[in-house]
């Protein structure tokens, strides 16, 4: 029991890390508008009311779970007979809550500094219900479509990162860029020390996500732990070198690399050898770096790069799982391409494609609908003044020199 609760509280480390990571990257006048905190609260409530059940409850046609566990009915201190059979059901439920919360919060990155707070809450609640929960069920639910197919996702590469990444891109496109973005106004990150602290917390907290997904203390958790750190380190180093090749190694680049590595190893951590973390991390940095450049060149205002880092990193990670997996590490997994089993790679690709398309299309539609009904974007004057004042009546930095 201790390991899972440790995993859950450690997996909560990213919550703080994530907030800081985001905060530092935005412009000063919209610092408070990072909707993440509101989302943390919203999803925390929805999860226990019906989210857990919709994701993990009794299967309904492979698409989603039922409502048998709504309101945490029959989710108590005894372990579930289906999930994480060695720890209290409540602990597993809470652990899964962390993933749900983080996924929804990730999307807020796509819409910083221009979304109406009220609209975002509405969107988030709908997205959580109609996109996150079904996808979680497909991949991790007993009877879920992709679970039955055999797509492997250890700690949420697909459920969290591909899901959030593609959705972020769709929403950013629906919302259109910030004022001044097209003209090339520099949108300088306003506080790099905060970003760095955030990244450090994320790195630490991710051990909770990946190690904890073993659901029990022991060899597998240890293996996932090592793979996670190795991938993060490899990716950070690679991105640092890439920046250096361009001109100089930057801290912002290096920490982004670390996050890319963490994302990529997420689906693979408990299925591949620890050393596979190196190629997984290196390639993740390469892919995500290029995608960031691509996104910038195409002038899409998805400036926290949720798609480039989480989306593309997650896609690579899911595919890498199909390449590097080994039953020797985790008998509940499968062998990958390197061990002669090309079928697993195919299953991964199918899973990736399914989630990519579903996430993007449904978010696009959802975004359009919410825009039509409530209006997603703030008024132009509100955007100029900064969302701190217009949406929250609050200044992050309350001194004259600002």
């Amino acid at each position, binding site marked *: 029991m201790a390991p899972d609760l440790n995993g859950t509280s450690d997996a909560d480390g990213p919550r703080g890390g994530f907030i800081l990571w985001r905060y530092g990257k935005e412009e000063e006048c919209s610092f408070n508008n990072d909707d993440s905190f509101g989302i943390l609260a919203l999803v925390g409530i929805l999860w226990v009311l019906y989210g857990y059940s919709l994701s993990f409850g009794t299967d309904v046609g492979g698409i989603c779970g039922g409502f048998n566990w709504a309101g945490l009915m029959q989710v108590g201190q005894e372990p579930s007979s289906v999930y994480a059979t060695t720890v209290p059901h409540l602990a597993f439920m809470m652990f899964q809550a962390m993933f749900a919360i983080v996924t929804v919060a990730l999307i807020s990155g796509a819409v910083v500094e221009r979304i109406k707070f009220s609209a975002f809450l509405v969107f988030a609640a709908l997205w959580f219900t109609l996109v996150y929960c079904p996808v979680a069920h497909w991949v991790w639910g007993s009877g879920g479509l992709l679970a039955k197919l055999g797509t492997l996702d250890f700690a949420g590469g697909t459920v969290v990162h591909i899901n959030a990444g593609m959705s972020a891109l769709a929403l950013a496109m629906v919302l259109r860029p910030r004022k001044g973005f097209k003209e090339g106004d*520099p949108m300088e990150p306003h506080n790099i020390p905060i970003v760095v602290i955030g990244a450090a917390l994320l790195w630490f907290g991710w051990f909770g996500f990946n190690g904890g997904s073993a659901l029990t203390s022991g060899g597998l958790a240890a293996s996932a732990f090592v793979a996670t750190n190795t991938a993060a380190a490899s990716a950070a180093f690679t991105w640092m070198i890439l920046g250096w090749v361009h001109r100089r190694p*930057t801290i912002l680049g290096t920490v982004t690399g670390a996050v890319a590595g963490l994302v990529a190893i997420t689906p693979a951590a408990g299925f591949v050898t620890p050393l596979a973390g190196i190629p997984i991390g290196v390639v993740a940095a390469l892919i995500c770096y*290029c995608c960031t*450049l691509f996104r910038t060149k195409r002038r899409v205002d998805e400036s926290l790069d949720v798609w480039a880092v989480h989306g593309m990193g997650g896609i690579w990670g899911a595919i890498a799982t199909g390449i590097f997996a080994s039953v020797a590490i985790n008998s509940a997994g499968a062998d990958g391409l390197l061990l002669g089993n090309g079928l697993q790679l195919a299953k991964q690709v199918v899973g990736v494609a399914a989630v990519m398309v579903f996430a993007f299309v449904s978010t696009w539609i959802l975004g359009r609908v919410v825009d039509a009904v409530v209006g997603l974007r703030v008024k132009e004057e509100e955007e100029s003044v900064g969302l701190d004042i217009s949406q929250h009546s609050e200044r992050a930095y309350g001194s004259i020199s600002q």
Partner: protein
Amino acid sequence: MKAALEKIGIVGMTVTEVSGRGRQKGIALQWRAGEYRVDFLPKLKLEIVVKDEDVDKVVRIMARSAWTGKVGDGKIFVFLVKKAIRIRTGESGEKAL
């Protein structure tokens, strides 16, 4: 420059952190991946009030101590100050400096 001014008895000054742009046209900084340009760079603005007869001497000393020979050394502007008052004592004019 502080030390040089202190030597001739000028101690009081006001320093403001500003952002400025000259003919350098800004610099290119590096982002996560790729670059962005910034026009307005952090600079310091120094304000000193001196007696009329000291202006040339002070300007000479400031220019000499701030000089590096490189772009970005900055400029000195001389303004006429009509009145000066010390709030604590009510003194005005040169006695207030």
